[in-house]
């Protein structure tokens, strides 16, 4: 089964970002393919590498990066949501005259079309959020 996962909630908010990660991990462990994970609304906050939780807490960003590295996942942050919340990659820094970037390893910033393509190309779209 080919899946696209949509994440609408930020980390450490309620539970949706955790549920999405646990679901993704379980799907991959069962041998399913994740075509894309699309982070929308506050969900883009899952993709900043400046996140520094206490050492005894789960690292909601790094664990996505690690999963992406292991399974070559396509982690996409919605560009308009990212701009509003100050999530920046090299291209966005240059385009908007920002003095820094903060996007985490394994994530990229792109448009809403990526969500639609994910829904069309996948067998199932599963949405997590508030």
């Amino acid at each position, binding site marked *: 089964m080919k899946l696209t996962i949509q994440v609408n909630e930020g980390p450490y908010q309620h539970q949706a970002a955790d549920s999405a990660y646990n679901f993704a991990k379980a*799907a991959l462990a*069962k041998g399913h393919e994740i075509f894309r994970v699309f982070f929308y609304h506050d969900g883009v906050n899952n993709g900043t590498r400046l996140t520094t939780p206490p050492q005894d807490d789960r690292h909601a960003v790094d664990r996505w990066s690690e999963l992406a590295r292991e399974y070559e996942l396509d982690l996409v942050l919605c560009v308009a949501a990212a701009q509003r919340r100050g999530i920046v990659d090299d291209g966005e820094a240059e385009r908007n005259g920002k003095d820094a970037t903060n996007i985490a390893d394994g994530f990229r910033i792109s448009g809403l079309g990526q969500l639609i393509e994910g829904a069309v190309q996948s067998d199932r*779209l599963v949405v997590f959020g508030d």
Partner: protein
Amino acid sequence: MSILHIVNKSPYEKSSLYTAVDFVKDSDVVLLIEDAVYAAARGGKAAEKLSGLDISVLGADLAARGIGEDKLIDGVSVVDYAGFVDLVKAKDSTQSWL
């Protein structure tokens, strides 16, 4: 055309479970995750709305809230994340009632 309805909010906080239940057909499954697992606790007001429906509950979220499986209403299936994935595959599509 069967649907997996995913509900993640307590019925004692939001009405999304009741909205979902109005749309559930015979071939569908309702999966309760996160705070929605409270709906499956026996003796709760929400439990009666679930009678006759195919209900699954995410075991990890039950355990996180201290709800033992012996405290659930009859006929509820407890699944783990792998079971969640299986439900997504078994139904034709999913609907998250956010």
